[in-house]
């Protein structure tokens, strides 16, 4: 549990520090809607990729079921985000936050790919708990408050309970694995 908490805290710290470091006055950086859209799409794509690794490496039916749900749900959110930015004629803009998320994801994927069997299953699900926890905090405390466009804000507000349910589902799955 301590290791999980450390993982979650370090992921959150990375995300929030990157968000804060862009502004010399040490306030949360102001992200434009184009940047927020980029962060939203990248964050969802990262979890889809983690789930694809799980489907490649795990033989556990509960883990595979969870991974399939992650792929379906996060791809749906990506689709809605892309449809929205297309409608609004906004091009998602890469930024320090989305770049940091991608950089961290490369490290995590390397870690997951190095594991096998039940070690992999536990590492994958623990990472899902940590990752969803960090993204929920970022969405609620930074992305939603900073979104200017009402439709973008509404989409993020719709995504929030999906992420919370994923977090609860990941915790339930982790408990089942650790029995």
């Amino acid at each position, binding site marked *: 549990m301590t290791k999980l908490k450390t993982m979650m805290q370090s992921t959150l710290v990375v995300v929030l520090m990157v968000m804060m470091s862009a502004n010399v006055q040490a306030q949360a950086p102001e992200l434009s809607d184009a940047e927020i859209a980029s962060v939203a799409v990248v964050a969802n794509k990262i979890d889809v990729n983690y789930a694809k690794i799980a489907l490649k490496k795990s033989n556990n039916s509960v883990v595979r079921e969870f991974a399939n749900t992650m792929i*379906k*749900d996060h791809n749906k*959110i990506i689709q*809605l985000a892309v449809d929205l930015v297309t409608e609004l004629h906004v091009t998602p803009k890469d930024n320090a936050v989305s770049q940091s998320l991608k950089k961290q994801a490369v490290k995590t994927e390397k870690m997951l790919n190095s594991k096998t069997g039940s070690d992999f299953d536990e590492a994958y699900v623990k990472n899902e708990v940590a990752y969803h926890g960090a993204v929920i905090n970022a969405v609620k405390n930074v992305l939603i408050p900073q979104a200017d466009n009402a439709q973008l804000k509404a989409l993020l507000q719709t995504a929030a*309970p*999906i992420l*919370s*349910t994923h977090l609860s*589902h990941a915790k*339930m799955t982790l408990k089942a694995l650790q029995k």
Partner: protein
Amino acid sequence: MKRVKQLAIVSFVVLGGVLLAGCQNKPKQVDQVQSPEKVQRHIPQTDTVRIVRMKFVPDTVRVQLGDTLVFINNGIVMHNVVQYPDQKWKSPLLHSGDVWKYVPEKKGRYFCSIHKVMRGYIIIE
């Protein structure tokens, strides 16, 4: 003779009246045992459960036998409605906007087997 005739007519009228009154007062066996107005019959109702923001709303429904539950997916991701825990009955996959009707036969719990933390309960009154 005239008096006898009058008496006969009066008697006939009285007798006829008594007979008529008797017929009207005769209890109707069928009504006493099974009056349609007195039997309380439940008219089947329809109740709606919305799937919204990753919850079944309301999460507990009270219905009577014969009632129909209408599940509507008002969310953006796919869900289903499945008896918990044995999956004795289940809905098809419900995309956003899909509707599914179910007539419960027993009380019990159900869940979304895609998002296993989503739970609901049916009470049969």
